[in-house]
C-alpha cells in the first residue's frame, strides 16, 4: 500500500465509522425515529450493537494483517476504529443515562429553554439514586459499565505522546485489556436478553475466534521460544 494513499483511506474509514451515527441522526431529524414503537430501546440497541461490532473489527485488524505481509498497513487504522468503538459505547452509556434511566430529558430541555441553566443538573440529582441502585444491583449493568471504563482508559492513553510517556511495554500491557472489554461486552449482551433468547451468539462466535487466534499464536510463540538442544554427534 503506497503511503500516500493512507490519508485518503483514513478519510474513508472516518466516513464509514460515522455512517451509523449519521443514519441515526437522519432518523431523528426527519421524524422517523419518533414513530418507532420504542425509540429509546431502538437507540439503545443501535448504539450498543455498533460499539460491539467496532470492537470486533478492532480485534480483527491484527489477525487479518497477519494473513499476508502486504496487509501490514492495516495497523494504521486500528486506533481510529478503536476510538470509534469508544464513541459508540459512550453514546450507548449516554442513552442509558439520559433516555433509559428515567432521567427526564424533555423536562431538562424545557427547563433550559425557560432559562433555568441548572435544570439538567437538577434532573440528574433526582435520578442519581436510582442509577446507583441499578449499578449496585444489576449484573449486566456492572459488566457493561466495566467494559466502558476499560474503553475509556484505552481511549485516554491512545495518543502517541501518551504511548511514548508510558513506554511501549506498559502501554501494550494496558491495551491488552481490550480482550477483557470484548469479553465483558458479550457477557453484558447475554445477561440482558431473556433466557432462551440466543441473539448474541453470532457476536460471541466472532469474539471467540478472534481471541482463540491470539491464544493459538501465544502457544506457538512459546513453543518456538523453547531452548533447543542440538545433538553434536551420535555416540
Amino acid at each position: 500500500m503506497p503511503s500516500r494513499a493512507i490519508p485518503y483511506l483514513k478519510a474513508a474509514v472516518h466516513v464509514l465509522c460515522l455512517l451509523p451515527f449519521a443514519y441515526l441522526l437522519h432518523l431523528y431529524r426527519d421524524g422517523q425515529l419518533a414513530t418507532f414503537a420504542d425509540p429509546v430501546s431502538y437507540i439503545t440497541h443501535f448504539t450498543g450493537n455498533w460499539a460491539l461490532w467496532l470492537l470486533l473489527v478492532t480485534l480483527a485488524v491484527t489477525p487479518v494483517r497477519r494473513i499476508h505481509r502486504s496487509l501490514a498497513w492495516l495497523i494504521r487504522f486500528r486506533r481510529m476504529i478503536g476510538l470509534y468503538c469508544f464513541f459508540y459505547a459512550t453514546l450507548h452509556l449516554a442513552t442509558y443515562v439520559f433516555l433509559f434511566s428515567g432521567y427526564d430529558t424533555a423536562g431538562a430541555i424545557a427547563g433550559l429553554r425557560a432559562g433555568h441553566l441548572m435544570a439538567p443538573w437538577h434532573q440528574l440529582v433526582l435520578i442519581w439514586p436510582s442509577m446507583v441502585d441499578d449499578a449496585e444491583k444489576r449484573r449486566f449493568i456492572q459488566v457493561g459499565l466495566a467494559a466502558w471504563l476499560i474503553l475509556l482508559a484505552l481511549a485516554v492513553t491512545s495518543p502517541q505522546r501518551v504511548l511514548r510517556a508510558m513506554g511501549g511495554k506498559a502501554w501494550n500491557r494496558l491495551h491488552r485489556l481490550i480482550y477483557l472489554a470484548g469479553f465483558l461486552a458479550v457477557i453484558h449482551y447475554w445477561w440482558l436478553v431473556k433466557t432462551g433468547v440466543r441473539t448474541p451468539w453470532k457476536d460471541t462466535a466472532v469474539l471467540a475466534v478472534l481471541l482463540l487466534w491470539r491464544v493459538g499464536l501465544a502457544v506457538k510463540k512459546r513453543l518456538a521460544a523453547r531452548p533447543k538442544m542440538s545433538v553434536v554427534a551420535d555416540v
Partner: protein
Amino acid sequence: MLIRKRAEIASSEITPKETWRAYQMSRRRLLAGLGAVGAAAAVAGLPESAWGLDKLKTVPSSYNVTDRAVTPEAKAQSYNNFYEFGEEKDDPLHNAQKMRIRPWTVKIEGLVNKPQTLNIDDILNYRPIENRVYRFRCVEAWSMVIPWDGYPLSELIKFADPLPSAKYVQFISSDSGKGMTLPSGIEFPYSEGLRMDEAMHPLTLLTFGSYGEVLANQQGSPIRVIVPWKYGFKSAKSIVKIKFVDKQPHTTWNDMAPQEYGFYSNVNPTVDHPRWSQAHERLLNTDSIFPHVVPTLMFNGYSEVAPLYAGMDLRKNY
C-alpha cells in the same frame, strides 16, 4: 359478530386477503427504501384503515382507560413479543403475515363435562364483542394503552362447563403456524395458565380484535386472552387449546427462568425483575424520542382484582 357474512369467510377468500396484506407490507417497505428498519416507520405514517384488516362490529364497554392516550396502532402492530415468529420485536410483523387464521379450531379439554373442538367463528359470534381500552404492561418495563375487542373469558368457560375439580385453566398456543421460526432456545408450544378465579374475573378478556379490527397476526390472531393486571406474557396468543386442570399448569417463561417470571406475574411495582426495576415503565403512546416514563401501578391500576389475592404474599407469589 363480523359485519361480513360468515359464509364469506371461507379459506378460498382468506388467501387473497393475506396475499394482499403481505403485498401491502412489502410495498411499504419498498416505499421506505430502508428495509426492515424502515417498515415500522413507513407503516406509522399511514391511517389506521390502511392495515387492511377486517373491521369488527363492537359494542362500547365501561372498561375504558381515559387518563392516558391510546398507543398509535402502528406502534402496537410493529412491536410484538411473539417468539414463535422470532426473537426481535419487529420479527412478528414480518414473519406472521404468512400464518393462516382460517380454518382455525380451539380444543376444549381436560376436566370438562364434554370435551369438544370449537370453530373459531362460532366462538367469535357467541357473544357481543366489546371494545375495551386497557393498560398493557410488558414485563420488560414498557407499556401501551390498547383498545382490545372481545368478550369475557368467563362466558366461554361457562359454555365449556368445567367440572368442580377444575382449579386452573391452561392455554396452549399454536406451534404450527406458517411463518413461525420457533427459536430453538424456547420450548414450544407456548403454554400459559390462570387460576380459575382469575380466568373467571370479568376483566379477563377473550380477545379477537384490537382497534376495532380483527387481531393482526402478529398480535396473536385469531384468538387470544388479555389479562390486563398481569405482565403481557401471561396473555397467551393464537390459542389452539384450552385445558381445564386441577393442578397449576406449567407455563413457558416460568419453566425457562422461574426466578424472573412467576406463575402469577401480577404487575407489581414493589417486586423488581432481577435485571431491572418494575417501579416505572416507558409508556409508548407518544410520538417523541423522549421516553414518557410513568410510575407503575399495583395490578396495573386494576385494584378490583386485589381480593383474588387476599392473604397471599405477593413478594413470594410474584
